[in-house]
């Protein structure tokens, strides 16, 4: 008997539960079977027993309610979900794609995971990433690279490559990733799914292994804007265990946005003259549709944004060098066998920390430099000053536009190995995504067709801080326009 068609959205999933096409247990088994094949190397750990146990409980709830899905209390009821492996799920291995945490079992769940599961999501397992979220291609994992869902010789983007690829390949329905300089938006764009980074502070980072604390945010991957919104509504909100969590931050209802008279800003410093044909074509199409719908397109100047990469690769690496100092083989994680003979505690630490991969080591060394005595004023602090200038530019722009539109990247997914020889080349690929992290504003990658090689393209939408709902409303309207045009 052929398997029923897998649902593509939460709405479809819930309708399928109510019509009996799928049950929580059968849908979990179906997605787990796909995840187990691990065609793309997206999964690092599967929680089969745990997932099936969750599914059975949900099945009982469904039966008790006469087959009706409790959408109000469990908006993510039965959703097969993947979690990036730098976000803690209690009693499940969490590696951060690093040999230094190869055997680490976390004793607690991240706030976002607790919220997801309370809303009915079923955690299938942990998804592959660039080691400690450092990378833009998912080629930096200690457990092998993740393959692009449709073009296996290409990268899925990073660092949340596994999270994006698994949704695109229907190995889970929704997933969580983290975004520090574009690590949700870039893989979302390359894989053809929706990926969103919320306003800084709206989603708790408790249980996210910190890379750069002033930049990191957790966010959803999904097939539609509506599903991304639903996940964000569940995971957002004040958390007293995250001191950077803001109050009154639960993401609310998505407004129905009229495009007529809406002002869309096009940053001239994040333009699309020198991008690939596929990216240029997508941006042109989007602008055409928007203009015909009555939008006013406004060129916007962000003169300090040209320094964004330099600023990011000083601030992020500095914060990382501090955050990763905890990995020393003493309280958790792996120890190197040879470390036993260490002559001092410092030497013991140094031996164990040799387990980091090359990209992580590079960034820790850079951050150590930027924070060192005699250099911190001119590097780290100066970068923080330029960050303020960039952030002010962006906030000033929002005083006369409603949203900003830009490419996500200069191209679609590149070939594996193409940029690994030159770290700087990889860093320069983050040009379009970094500014949103520096300013703390919400930003999304919305899929917009494919290029001539059938590679997915995404366009970036940014909104003022705290206006995640407006961004989602705009994205939803744009998504509808795209569907009508197809």
């Amino acid at each position, binding site marked *: 008997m052929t398997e029923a068609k897998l649902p593509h959205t939460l709405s479809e999933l819930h309708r399928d539960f109510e019509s009996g096409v799928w049950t929580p247990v059968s849908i979990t088994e179906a997605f787990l079977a796909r995840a187990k094949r691990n065609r793309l190397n997206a999964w690092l750990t599967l929680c089969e027993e745990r997932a099936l146990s969750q599914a059975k409980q949900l099945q009982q709830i469904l039966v008790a309610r006469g087959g009706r899905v409790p959408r109000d209390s469990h908006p993510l009821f039965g959703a097969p979900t993947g979690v990036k492996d730098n976000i803690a799920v209690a009693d499940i291995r969490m590696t951060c794609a690093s040999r230094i945490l190869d055997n680490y079992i976390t*004793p607690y769940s991240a706030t976002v995971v607790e919220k997801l599961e309370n809303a009915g999501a079923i955690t299938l397992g942990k998804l592959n990433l660039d080691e400690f979220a450092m990378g833009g291609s998912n080629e930096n994992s200690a457990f092998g690279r993740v393959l692009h869902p449709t073009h296996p010789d290409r990268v899925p983007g990073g660092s949340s490559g596994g999270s994006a690829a698994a949704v695109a390949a229907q190995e889970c329905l929704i997933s969580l990733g983290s975004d520090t300089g574009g690590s949700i938006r870039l893989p979302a764009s390359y894989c053809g799914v929706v990926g969103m980074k919320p306003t800084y502070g709206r989603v708790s980072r408790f249980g996210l292994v910190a890379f750069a604390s002033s930049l990191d945010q957790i966010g959803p991957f999904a097939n539609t804007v509506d599903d991304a919104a639903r996940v964000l509504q569940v995971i957002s909100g004040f958390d007293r265990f995250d001191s950077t969590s803001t109050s009154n931050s639960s993401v609310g209802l998505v407004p129905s946005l009229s495009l007529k008279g809406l002002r869309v800003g096009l940053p001239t410093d994040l333009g699309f003259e020198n991008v690939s044909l596929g990216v240029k074509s997508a941006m042109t199409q989007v602008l055409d549709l928007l203009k015909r719908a009555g939008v006013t397109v406004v060129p916007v100047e962000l003169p300090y944004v040209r320094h964004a990469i330099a*600023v990011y*690769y000083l601030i992020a690496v500095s914060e990382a060098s501090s955050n990763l100092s905890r990995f020393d083989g*003493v309280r958790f994680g792996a120890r190197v066998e040879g470390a036993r003979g260490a002559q001092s505690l410092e030497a013991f630490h140094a031996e164990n920390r040799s387990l*980091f991969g090359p990209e992580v080591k590079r960034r820790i060394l850079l951050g150590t430099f930027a924070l060192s*005595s*005699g250099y911190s004023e001119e590097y780290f602090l100066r970068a923080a000053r330029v960050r303020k200038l960039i952030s002010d530019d962006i906030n000033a722009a929002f005083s006369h536009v409603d949203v900003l539109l830009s490419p996500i990247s200069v191209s679609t997914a590149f070939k594996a190995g193409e940029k690994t020889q030159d770290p700087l080349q990889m860093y320069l690929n983050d040009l379009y995504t970094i500014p949103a992290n520096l300013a703390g504003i919400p930003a999304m990658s919305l899929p917009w067709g494919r290029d001539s090689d059938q590679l997915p393209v995404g366009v970036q939408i940014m909104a003022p801080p705290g206006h995640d709902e407006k961004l989602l409303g705009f994205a939803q309207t744009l998504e509808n326009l795209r569907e009508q045009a197809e």
Partner: protein
Amino acid sequence: MENQLPPAHQSSPEERVRRLALLARIKLSDEEVRAFAPQLETILKHVSEIQHVDVGDVRPMLSALDGRDAESRADSPRNADDQVNQSQRTLQCAPESSADSFVVPPVL
């Protein structure tokens, strides 16, 4: 001071990498030092462009919350009635632990 970096003109790129590795407490092989040295120089050259930005008297932005006060909570443990279990679970995360301590090789 042992922990300080010598000025750039007083050391080669490889010496600089070795000194940074010492500060960062990461053991690098000779091959890694040779590979990282030119890479770090290239990256540092690129990021040094911010030296030419006129920042005036702008204050450093150290958080995306940018001045908003972080909310503090009471200094009370989560799962206050489960402290012993929580301690044990934390100790179990370590490669080696005893009843109440993390165990490391003797380094006296």
